[in-house]
């Protein structure tokens, strides 16, 4: 039976309102269109009651009360604005302005600052409080964010965000009185601290105390409120974190996590350093026109007609002369599902290419291999299950680099719930928190897994394996504790990474699959296992069957091929070493691939990742999300649809989809029906 929340009736500014019991006065006022100024309050965070900007009068209370923390009471009478309240608020605001250096003119956040806005709102046109002229430190040790304590108002939003949402508790208050400061760990600077650079503190900071070092100066490029705010996702690692992209005049000014609204995600709207900062970096030299390599090896620009003609004719030629077996297609798993289908269909059906793969095909083959050992296709657990696990074993993965948010979730689990997390392999153990850390070389991972298996069986064989893996006495002891913890756990989960899927022999992974099965399956037959895949859309690529289950054939057979490069930069991948000496290779890429310059013959520019819409599949293959286009493609660059449509026409291939939408639906259908 649905229980209805108890209602409470109160009067705010003479207006009778009814709100849920337990609401604060501030919430009650806002729900009824009454504005009360705030600074330390933030909807995504717990209520703090520190800035005292939101003070109101309550009947029967001798002092003003902070409306953000005062619960409503039946029959309460509240006055939100009168001369005295305004005087108190103005005094508070003046206190804050006078306390530190709030010279708006010289602040990178000017125009995008809640403190500044409030000064305008309360018409604080001069100060009656003398400035303190205290000097506080600035911290520019970190690549992504700068902290200027001189602009800090000690509202504590960053502290609460770091603790409540990120779960890292890196930030806290230090010192007392006028020397109060937001400190990191035990008075470390940002770079030396245990900060994950998720940047949430910066996002919730109401002033210019924490600023993004990769973001253009708002005063030059525009303020947030003048920007188009695009509700989209980040496609960089497969966690598909929702973002708000701030765009003005086709410039991406800022990326923020989507803190509002409960979307059922355990990250609650955080972003990692990749999604928040790396995307703002300049990746490389943008390819603004098609190019072809001339006989002397130099690159010359070409017209679209020339390049499309060159590529289609070369591919057609080889197909005719050497047959499809002499042709290959290699795609980046960073590309969207739509791009991947376009590429796959063009290569397999349009060119009858003998070999089509993704750059991370090797990992796919290991997984498939492990699957075969298990004789049954498996479904991975959702990464969202991680916070519920009581024990997590991370094997051969470095989530802080591949999927940073997973690292953050593990850290939070350890700190907040005492989640047991074991890191096995050459990995980042998110020190100093990890429960267990057993570092071994990649090659020794199978030994460790063998020992784990043996240990759980209660056999003593494991000891030898551990010895062979070169474990020290301490590590052996820790390993036994891992075995015991796993045996005792009720809801464990494995997280494996590239170091394990990168092994040619799939046996080790197969062992993990069987261990995971021993602890029972999740609903929908999902295994207690998540595979952290190399690229943002690896799961999509794998499910769309682009990654080849066959090993890469000897390159001598290859006479021509097409490469689809993605973003972030894929061009230095080892897999591409194979291309040297192949007769003709064309690449479709948003950037000029410097490291491939001598291996490739033709370059077709394509939209950068923020310039094209598309769907992406989550790292565990369980969800697909739509990423909208944030920026306009530069003039003269075709979208993927046009590129492949043109190429297809020129090789005489007619795909069975008429629009991008058709394509999306086709991709989604395929993905849904397939397990790895």
């Amino acid at each position, binding site marked *: 039976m649905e229980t209805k929340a108890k209602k409470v009736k109160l009067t705010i500014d003479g207006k009778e309102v009814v709100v849920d019991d337990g609401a604060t006065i501030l919430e009650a006022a806002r729900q009824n269109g009454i504005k009360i100024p705030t600074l330390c309050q933030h909807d995504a965070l717990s209520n703090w009651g520190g800035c*005292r900007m939101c003070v109101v009068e309550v009947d029967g209370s001798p002092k003003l009360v902070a409306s953000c923390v005062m619960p409503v009471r039946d029959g309460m009478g509240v006055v939100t604005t009168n001369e005295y309240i305004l*005087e108190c608020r103005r005094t508070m605001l003046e206190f804050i302005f006078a306390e530190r250096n709030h010279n708006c003119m010289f602040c990178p956040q000017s125009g995008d600052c809640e403190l500044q806005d409030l000064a305008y709102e309360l018409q604080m046109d001069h100060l009656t409080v003398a400035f303190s002229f205290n000097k506080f430190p600035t911290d520019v040790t970190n690549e992504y964010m700068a902290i200027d304590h001189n602009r800090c108002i*000690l509202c504590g939003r960053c502290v609460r965000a770091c603790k409540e949402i990120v779960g890292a508790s890196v930030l806290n208050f230090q010192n007392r009185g006028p020397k109060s400061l937001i400190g990191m760990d035990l008075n470390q600077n940002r770079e030396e601290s245990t900060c994950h650079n998720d940047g949430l503190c910066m996002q919730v900071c109401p002033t210019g105390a924490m600023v993004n070092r990769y973001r253009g100066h708002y005063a030059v490029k525009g303020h947030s409120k003048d920007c188009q705010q695009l509700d989209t996702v980040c496609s960089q690692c497969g966690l598909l974190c929702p973002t708000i992209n701030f765009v003005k005049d086709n410039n991406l000014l800022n990326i923020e996590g989507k803190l509002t609204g409960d979307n059922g995600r355990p990250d609650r709207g955080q972003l990692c350093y990749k999604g928040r900062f790396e995307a703002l970096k300049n990746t490389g030299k943008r390819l603004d026109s098609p190019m072809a390599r001339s006989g002397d090896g130099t690159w010359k620009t070409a017209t679209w007609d020339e390049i499309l003609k060159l590529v289609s004719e070369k591919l057609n030629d080889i197909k005719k002369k050497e047959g499809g077996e002499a042709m290959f297609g290699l795609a980046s798993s960073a590309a969207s599902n739509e791009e991947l289908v376009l590429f796959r269909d063009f290569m397999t059906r349009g060119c009858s290419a003998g070999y089509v793969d993704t750059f991370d095909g090797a990992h796919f083959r290991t997984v498939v291999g492990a699957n075969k050992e298990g004789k049954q296709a498996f479904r991975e657990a959702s990464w969202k299950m991680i916070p519920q696990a009581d024990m997590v074993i991370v094997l051969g993965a470095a989530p802080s680099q591949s999927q940073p948010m997973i690292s953050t979730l593990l850290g939070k689990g350890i700190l907040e719930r005492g989640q047991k997390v074991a890191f096995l392999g050459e990995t980042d153990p998110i020190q100093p928190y990890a429960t267990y850390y057993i570092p071994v070389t990649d090659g020794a991972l199978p030994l460790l897994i063998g020992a784990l298996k043996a240990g759980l069986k209660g056999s003593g064989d494991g000891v030898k394996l551990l010895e062979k893996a070169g474990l020290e006495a301490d590590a052996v002891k820790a390993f036994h504790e891992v075995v015991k913890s796993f045996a005792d756990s009720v809801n464990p989960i494995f997280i494996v990474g590239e170091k394990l899927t990168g092994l040619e022999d799939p046996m080790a992974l197969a062992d993990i699959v069987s261990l995971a099965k021993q602890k029972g399956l999740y609903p929908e037959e999902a295994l207690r296992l998540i595979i952290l895949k190399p690229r943002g859309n690896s799961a999509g690529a794998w499910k769309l069957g682009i990654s080849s289950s066959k090993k890469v054939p000897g390159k001598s057979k290859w006479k021509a091929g097409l490469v689809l490069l993605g973003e972030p930069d894929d061009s230095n991948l080892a897999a591409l070493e194979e291309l040297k000496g192949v007769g003709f290779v064309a690449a479709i890429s948003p950037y000029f691939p410097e490291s491939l310059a001598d291996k490739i013959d033709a370059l077709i520019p394509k939209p950068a990742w923020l310039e094209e819409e598309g769907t992406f599949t989550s790292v565990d293959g369980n969800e697909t999300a739509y990423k909208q286009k944030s920026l306009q493609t530069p003039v003269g660059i075709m979208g993927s649809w046009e590129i492949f449509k043109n190429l297809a026409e020129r090789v005489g291939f007619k795909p069975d989809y008429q629009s991008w939408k058709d394509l999306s639906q086709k991709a989604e259908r395929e993905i849904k029906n397939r397990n790895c």
Partner: protein
Amino acid sequence: MKVFRSHILICGGTGCHASGSIEVKKILLAELENRGLAGEIKVVETGCNGFCAMGPVLVVYPDGVMYMNIQAGDIPEFVEEHLVKGRVLERLLYKEPVTGEVIPTMQEIPFFALQELRVLRNRGMIDPEKIEEYIARDGYAGMAKALTEMAPADIIKEVMDSGLRGRGGAGFPTGLKWRFASQSPGDIKYVLCNADEGDPGAFMDRSVLEADPHAVLEGMVIAAKAIGSHQGYIYCRAEYPLAIHRLNVAIAQAKEAGLLGKDILGTGFDFDLEIYQGAGAFVCGEETALMTSIEGKRGMPRPRPPFPAIAGLWQRPSILNNVETLANIGQIILHGAAWYAGVGTIKSKGTKVFALTGDVNNIGLVEVPMGTPLGTIVYDIGGGIAKGKKFKAAQLGGPSGGMIPIQYLNAPVDYEKVAELGAIMGSGGLIVMNEDSCAVDMARFFMDFCKDESCGKCTPCRVGTQKMLEILTNICNGKGKEGDIEKLEKWANVIKNTALCGLGQTAPNPVLSTLRHFRNEYEAHIHEKRCPAVVCSAFFKTPCMHACPINMDIPSYLALIKADRLEDAYKVLLKTNPFPSICGRVCDHKCETKCRRSTLDESVGIKYLKRYITDNAARPHLEKMPVTRNEKIAVIGAGPSGLTAARDLALRGYAVTLFDAYAQAGGMLRWGIPAYRLPREILDREIADILNLGVEFRNNTRVGMDISWDAIRMSYDAIYLAIGAQRSARSGVEGDGLKGVEGAIEFLREVNLGRIPEVGKRIAVVGGGNSAIDAARSALRLGAETVTILYRRQREDMPAQDVEIHAAQEEGIKIEYLVAPVRFQGADGRLQSVVCQRMTLGEFDVSGRKKPVTVAGSEFSLDVDQVILAIGQEAVMPFDAGPAGIGVSKRKLIEVEKGSKTATAAAMVFAGGDAVTGPDTVVGAVAAGHHAAAEIDAAIRLRNGETPYVPAEEEIAVPMVLDDETQEIPRVCIPEVACLERIKDFREVELGLSREAALTEASRCLRCDIQIE
């Protein structure tokens, strides 16, 4: 059980440990061992005895003799005298600070006698590390009763009925707090003890924990039973290692004895306790911050609601009580609510423990019934103010409390009254401040503390305290501005009303309370650039100069004496003082009361040294001043104030006419002060210097009679009224009009006019001021057989200078204290006797002295043939105030305009001296004369559009030499004529200093004027 013939209880509190009681105990044990007394005499180390300033203290039982300030070196003598020979060792006993009376036993020492011990009932009585001793004094009996006979609701009711209120400061009813927590749902609840005593100067909690830790544990178990808790925490600051040690011992013993832990007393009730050590943040005394701190987080307060009774420690229902509150509980349960509520006031029951510190003689811990007057605590228990200084205010409630000034000494100290006076009870820190404390400086000090201790969470507390401190610091540094007081008031109000927790809400209290009671001091700092208490050193070169009403350059002339440059020294004197020879004899020398030397030994004899210069140096020659200005000034009254103004104006080139009713100039200097204090030739010489400048002296001219007020108004550009207070106030008692009853002023005038009045044989002088003494001593010299001064208060209340009183007594004048005349009786219109009645001291009056109250039926008659009334003076106006446009107050004194020192409501009419202030000192009159001259000159120049006058000054190089080392040397004594000799006539009593004595005395100056870079 072994029986001892004597027990020695030696204090082992932190205070006495610090003053050496550990060593004393060691030596004592060794001495007893050596003398074979170890089997007869038992030495017990107790907790704090309370009399901390006198530590180490020890009490010998069964006789109860208390020894103080006992050092290891005193032990052999103590053992020999007291323990072996059975003689009390007098030199280590308590001496009354005022009377010097020696009091041997503890129960007779007022410090102890007036206390009511409940919380501190075991202090100094038991060894706090022995649970048996606590139990022997009914310890844990209350707990046993609560656990075995009472339901939780009964316990709460008992505590509610007792009226016990939280002793941590806010005074919330303890029983009510418990009831809320008991009604709060939940299986896990906590009982917390707040032992995070953070107020500067407060040490009640520490002492209770050190002296009687089990009392706190007992209270906590009872509280736990009442609310249904099974776990408690004592949050104690880590700076209290001894308290923590004794608590740990107590907890272990209680557990061992089955009085704590599982199944207490076999009742099935479980309660366990842990000590949590706080790192010493003041804010952690705030309940939510304290809980946050126990949770292992940074101690920062959280908003309420939810209140701790609903969601406290770890979000569970919790109660937090202060040490003192909990220490009361066992007794309340044992003896019942009615017993507890038997003392105290209507809304504040029981007793309160205060940590009495500051400028009070008896520093220590005192427990008194709620409602005990502040004066009783300060004077009767505290022994009054140290070093004979005057009480100024008591800071109650620590840095977030407020000051209670002298006029509220009668205030009953309870929650309501204290709050009404703008202070808070706080945890009971009571800091006594004397006249040498500056209200603004104290407010600044406390604000500095609160600023540092703000946790930084809420804006008003974090920034507001900084900003208020900045203004206070500016004011103390002489940079106060117009509008600062208003800003302080506004911000204080905003902070009080918007801060998150108690720390911020109360942080402005010291400012608000000093603004309320000492606003004039703020104004003096801001507008007059003066610190009335002579504390804020930005305002002055030296304290003595700042204390001097005419800012005499004291360190310079003392240095010149030392350099043997007496003529230069004389020039320095004359720069600011036209009467140095006179002031060298009769000045009340305020400078000496602020002399920094007095903090080392005694103040420098500045007055004597001033006289030494004028006695021994050649008098600087003064030329007649030419009249350079057109304006004519009339000065009415040729007393010190009129003469000073006339001199200053003549030096500025004005034509000055000085009017006086008498033949000779001098005013009160001549007619009020007897020649034995101020020889006439000295007086004549200094007056002549002034008249020789070219001042026209119109003697025997009574304005209003010999010349009309209007005539003067017409003929002069400006008038200075320096008419003094020339008439004695009358007594108003029956028979006041009899022949033989006269005023002291009139009597002294007659004497000094040389018209030797008729002097009786038996004379009574009524009053206690300098006039009373002057009249008495003059009468003696004129042949009176007995002279008795009747004074209605006590010796220490007499306004007359101490040396004068002493000299009078030496000369055989009898002083009857606490006596007042009721009527004068006589026959044929002639006085024959005075009927007096005895007085006793009642409540304090606004001056901080106890008010004399008549004792019924105590009348007695004194046969006298003359009564001289020295009970006050009045001014006699030479004009009709209304038409003249000059304001006159109810006290018949001339009113001056706000913002000015001498301007009256009438244009170009100025007034100063006794006619404005009431009877004051010579130097006060001189200061008024200077002010008047400057203001008259400024008014004239302003009218004429001239630039202000800046006097030219002769530069006199002053040696800047500092002694390498300062040794304690007593102050010089001035030689006097022998008593039997001097009463024969009016020859000068005090003789001057010898050169040798003067050089030694001058060398005692610490040279506060020298700034070392």
